[in-house]
């Protein structure tokens, strides 16, 4: 992937602090610096791995990009446009472009809605022109794309295995035809064999649709399999950012080295 492309997403000096309250009047007595001055760029059509140990702020970055939590300071540009300062109404169009895949396949689908409803909802919002038939066709198409069958449409989430649910979650994200997918540990809860299927699926989709991924994981071996770039996070700070081959061959930061050492090798 050539580095001359415009970044699809650029994060500048992102800070997300959570207040620690204490004392009689619940005053803020300190801050958890979950994300502390992090800057990076995502290039279109590439996969960027985000690694770091538990609690290092990976999820927080993902959620900040999707405006699921307020950020303390910093800027986020989507295709050159600053999106942090937008009102939630102005942000609406970007909801169509940035989507997310969640870690926990068991809780990321509403147990009360059928698969059709779950995915259909996304279509209703962003493609209101579709009628019911067209919508069903589109859903069937999406399910096919993630390796499920059209007849699964009328089932409820509990009728699926973890891997299948994760596919549904991906289908839901794809329904709005996004450009950028934030995948927050999408396979950590899954078995190695299922994990392999999902990772392959993601790679196939990227090849087909030209998606950009921010792939959050703590499995370095897995990240190596999928990423072009790797960002290494340690307690909220970005300690190393480099192309994947580079980082695995020649880790510079001691923390990265330590992480790599800890990976059991076959």
């Amino acid at each position, binding site marked *: 992937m050539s580095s001359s492309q415009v970044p699809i997403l650029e994060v500048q000096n992102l800070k997300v602090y959570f207040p620690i309250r204490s004392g009689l009047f619940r005053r803020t007595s300190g801050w958890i610096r979950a994300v502390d001055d992090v800057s990076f760029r995502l290039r279109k059509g590439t996969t960027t791995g985000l690694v770091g140990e538990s609690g290092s702020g990976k999820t927080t970055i993902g*959620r900040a990009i999707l405006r*699921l939590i307020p950020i303390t300071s910093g800027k986020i540009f989507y295709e050159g446009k600053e999106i942090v300062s937008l009102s939630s109404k102005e942000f609406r169009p970007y*909801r169509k472009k940035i989507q*997310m895949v*969640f870690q926990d396949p068991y809780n990321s*689908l*509403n147990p*009360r809605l059928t698969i059709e409803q779950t995915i259909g909802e996304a279509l209703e919002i962003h493609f209101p022109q579709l009628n019911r038939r067209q919508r069903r066709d589109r859903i069937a198409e999406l399910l096919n794309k993630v390796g499920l069958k059209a007849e699964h449409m009328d089932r409820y989430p509990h009728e699926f295995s973890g891997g299948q649910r994760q596919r549904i979650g991906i289908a839901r994200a794809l329904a709005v035809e996004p450009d950028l997918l934030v995948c927050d540990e999408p396979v950590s809860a899954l078995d190695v064999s299922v994990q392999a299927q999902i990772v392959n699926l993601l790679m196939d989709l990227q090849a087909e649709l030209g998606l950009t991924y921010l792939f959050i994981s703590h499995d370095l071996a897995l990240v190596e399999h999928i990423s072009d770039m790797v960002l290494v996070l340690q307690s909220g700070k970005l300690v190393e950012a480099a192309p994947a081959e580079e980082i695995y061959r020649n880790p510079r930061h001691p923390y990265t080295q330590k992480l790599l050492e800890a990976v059991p090798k076959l």
Partner: protein
Amino acid sequence: MRDRLLVRFFLRPRALTAASLLFFLYFLALFAPFLAPYEPSSQALGETFHPPNRIFWANGGFRVQLYRNVDPTAAEYRPIPGKSVPLKWLVHGFRYRFLGILPCDLHLFGVDPPVRIYLLGSDSTGRDVFSRLLYGARVSLSIGLVGVTLTTGLGLLVGGLAGYFGGIWDSLAMRTSELLMAIPGLYLLLALRAAFASHFSSDQMYFLILIILSLIGWSSPARIFRGLVLSLREMPFIQAARVLGLSPWRILWRHLLPNLLSYLFVSSTLSIPGYILGEAALSFLGIGIQEPSASWGLMLAQAQDIKVFALNFWWLLTPGVAIALTVICFNVLGDALRDAVDPRMELQTR
């Protein structure tokens, strides 16, 4: 998922029994005018505290034993040997509207006047306890349903919005509910009733009580719903809905509410007994449903007179049995539902 739930639920014989019993009771209440031989207010001052008539089979039909009042000062009745009248089916009696619409005067059973039949005896002014029990069921059985609907509705609204939107609304709602919880409920009830009762006739009292009960009652479901919403709000599927760009209302309506439903359902079932008992307690204190309307609580409250025990007017305690039965049924039903939905669901105490 839902049908499996129902199957799981109805596989329990206890739950099935309770459900069918309740169904039967509601059926009785619905058709009370047809099933009751007399109006609930119809008195027979010469036959106060009449014991239940014995009914026996003779010459191809049921016959009703007659009694004589041997000691009016102690309401002592003795059967008159050999005197009985036939029990008749589908007789004409007082007029009423069938299911509230069709004018009608047909009743399931009765005897030829002036003799009166008392399946469950008569009360202090000679009113038929059986008829009153049937009519009373309408109040007691509906007060639970309507009350729960109002309270849970209000609680859901306040708690749900407070939980989802948080901030100032949340604090406001929670402070209000704390305020309501801090005043002892019974006294709040007394005060509210005293403040408003004099504007209402005894028929409207039913609604007044309902409104007061739900005004007081919404706070604890509201707190529970708030908690549930707070935890649900962080669930990935709600986050996913936000990421998709759904509006907050839509998220509330389509994602939060359905997930609260099973809890809502179970907790409602389990809190219905509270209303039935609450009405009884209010009537006991003389501030519930009022004469001449009938409710089980009122009837039971009137049976607290020591002479009822001392003179063995046991039939006046039948409303107590009816209350106990209904409450047990609702509890069994609620427990079974909870087990079917989620056995770990948080329990409420009375």
